[in-house]
């Protein structure tokens, strides 16, 4: 008995080491794959980086052009260009943004927190709100509350982020004037004098747009899952014992329905990133999303690759956290890990 226990502990550690190694390898190959793909796409895009940089109507002499090509590193073959970037990257140097003429890490660092705050708030709000709505809908399946929530979710999930953003902008910023039209701080106020309340005020509309869009998916999945739970044998039995409403939810519903919700919500990182690009553009919010657009349109390869790497790390982390949390909640998943 004693021996058996210690053996299972050992396999447990070995298993953990193995699964961590696999994940690290997966992460590395993901980054390599994504960066090669992004690089190939930029190289084959119709955007000529130099053209984008100097503007369509600005003529340059042949000498200027030659110097720009040299500065951009466009002299070498694609493979040379990529390996030069990858080598520097392995040494921790993300390169210099050609558009901003500043280190990529500095450009990203400046904008990262604005985006993280936006996405973080949208993520938490959409998760909590979506889960609650899903639960309510399931408990009232077929009745008015369910129909309202379902209808609302269908409408929202067929709504593009930028469109909802524009509607909010027109309604709340232009017509009603409750919120500012864009940017992250009030006009004419130096950055160090902007109060937290003002920041929040500018933050509200883009965050609300992103949150509301995210609600639909999670609400509908939770509704389905919770309906299954409510029709399961153990709930029928619990009901027979007299459990109702709150206690039924606490004892049986929560744990059984939260797993898919959590998985979904962490996997939603990827969509959230895409949504924030659009929301930031509509609300002129200076985050990673708008910088990503600028770098892609401007042919700024180092900056684009930098943002792509950061965002894939972000999405990968989301999925990893989802796995870990699932394991923590559900012993069956833990055993499989």
């Amino acid at each position: 008995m004693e021996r058996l226990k210690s053996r299972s502990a050992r396999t447990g550690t070995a298993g953990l080491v193995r699964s961590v190694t696999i994940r690290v390898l997966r992460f590395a190959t993901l980054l390599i794959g994504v960066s090669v793909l992004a690089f190939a796409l930029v190289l084959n895009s119709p955007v000529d980086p130099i053209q984008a940089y100097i503007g369509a109507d600005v003529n340059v002499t042949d000498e200027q052009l030659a110097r720009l090509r040299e500065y951009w590193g466009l002299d070498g073959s694609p493979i040379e260009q990529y390996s030069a970037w990858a080598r520097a990257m392995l040494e921790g140097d993300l390169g210099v943004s050609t558009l901003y003429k500043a280190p990529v890490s500095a450009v990203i660092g400046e904008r990262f927190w604005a985006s993280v705050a936006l996405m973080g708030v949208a993520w938490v709000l959409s998760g909590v709100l979506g889960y609650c709505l899903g639960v309510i809908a399931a408990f009232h399946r077929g009745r008015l509350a369910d129909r309202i929530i379902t209808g609302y979710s269908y409408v929202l999930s067929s709504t593009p982020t930028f469109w909802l953003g524009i509607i909010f902008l027109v309604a709340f910023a232009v017509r009603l004037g409750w919120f500012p039209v864009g940017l992250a701080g009030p006009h004419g106020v130096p950055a160090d004098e902007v109060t937290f309340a003002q920041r929040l005020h500018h933050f509200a509309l883009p965050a609300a747009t992103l949150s509301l869009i995210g609600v639909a998916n999670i609400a509908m999945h939770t509704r389905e899952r919770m309906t299954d739970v409510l029709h399961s044998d153990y709930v029928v039995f619990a009901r027979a014992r007299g459990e109702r409403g709150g206690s039924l939810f606490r004892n049986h519903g929560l744990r059984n329905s939260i797993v898919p919700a959590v998985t979904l919500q962490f996997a939603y990182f990827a969509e959230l990133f895409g949504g924030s690009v659009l929301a930031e553009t509509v609300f002129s919010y200076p985050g990673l999303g708008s910088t990503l657009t600028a770098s892609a349109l401007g042919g700024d390869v180092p900056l684009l690759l930098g943002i792509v790497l950061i965002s894939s790390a972000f999405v990968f982390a989301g999925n990893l956290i989802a796995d870990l949390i699932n394991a923590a909640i559900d012993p069956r998943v833990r055993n499989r890990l």
Partner: protein
Amino acid sequence: MATGCAAGNSGAAGAGARGTELVIAVGDIAGGEFDPLKGWGSRPAQIRPIHSSLLAIDSKVNFVDDLASKYSVSEDALVWSFTVRDNARWSTGEPVTAQDVAFTYELLKKDGTRFDLSFVDKIVAVDDSHVEFRLSEPRSTFVSELSEIPILPKAHYGPDYSSDPIGSGPYRVKDFQDGQQVILEPNPYWYGDTVKFTKLTFLFLAEDAALAAAKSGSVDIAYVPPAFADQKIPGMTLQSFETVDSRGLTLPTLPAGNSGKIRGNDVKVGNDVTSDPAVRRALNIGLDREGIVELVLQGHGRPAYTLVDGLPWFNEETVFEDGRTDDAKQILEKGGWADSDGDGIVEKDGAKAQFTLLYPSDDQLRSDLALVVADQARKLGIEITAKGTTWDGIYLDGKANAVTWGGGRHHAHQLFGMYSSKTIDTGYNNMPQYSNAAVDKHLSAGLAATTPEEANKSWKLAQWDGKSGFAGENGDAPIVWLVRIDHLYLVRDGLDLGDQPIQGHGHEWALFNTIADWKWSG
């Protein structure tokens, strides 16, 4: 929420009333902030708020002294000498010296990507207030670089210049929030008349966001694209400014089968239809420019006959009555073109008068222009196929087909670049591969001139000298210029934006030539 609202309103203070503060949203103006090495100064009037330059333009687009109190050009046009004004101060209070000027030009010449200073051989700061430029070839259009390059402080310039720029212009930067806004306050050491505003805030908002901000009442000046010019916003008036921002068609002047270069790439050159002068002239007088302005710019523009309409070096003899369908048909007939098969398109030697017109499909204005031109040309008996492509595509096929071309600067060098045979196969100069000995002679004389008056005379003769030229009713028309765009802004009622010169290409900064003179009228 309540505090949030209050905060938002106080933030927008200045907009809406005749205050001493202005909020300005003229498009997404982010990029290259304050540093010429990053491109600051490559757009007309971009440097005016916080920098000064040796020369500047006045409201008639004459080149006048700015940081220089006087200048002279040597007899052989190779030595330009400047005296730096003695009351010029940096926003830190230190004097601006000839060494600062030399430092700036050396820096940009060495960089060699942003400003073309390849014709400058040597820059010498003779003493604290005198600087000399020695050129390797005569270049009267040097005045354009002299009025576009912002002078930098030698003692304060470094990699962090963008975040703490020091200039010698009317305003200085109080706060720069990258990607969001720039807040300016008056430079107390500015050598000009005291400015009337205590704070200018430039918002980095794209066009639709700028318009939305104007509607919500939080900006005083907003750029409007022509399509939205009908918008009425209480308290604001639409102000329209004439520009030299021109659009037209380049038409290859050589027959098909030649070869040449665009930006260093070997490309096919020539087109059998457009190389016939009769076809180019027929288009030049047959197309209806007013009609194009109406359709393409919703009326917010004016006809263009040369690249330089309205500027001091514009030859007014090149203006003619257009939209003359019958005359155009007659020219074609005299050139041997006739519609023998009755399909409405003329032929010559069995070949139809048809060619392809390339336009960049991401450019709405040029797309519309191409379609309208194709439609009008059909009435003349010429079949134009409008084809959308990318700029890369245009730089590959642009010398064998027609292209919707653009330009318009406050200097005459573009004339040399677009029409001199010396520029063929360099950059994307002279797309039609045009050469005319008489025009070449005038253009070279223009470059070698030692005074602006002398140069302007030559530029005018190059357009039309009474016998030949690249413009005018009887000119060679390698580029048929069609329209000039008006820049439109919604401006707070009562705001006087000064005596604006004809604006240059690019609506974002063009307004700021007169920034030091802005005031409330009445």
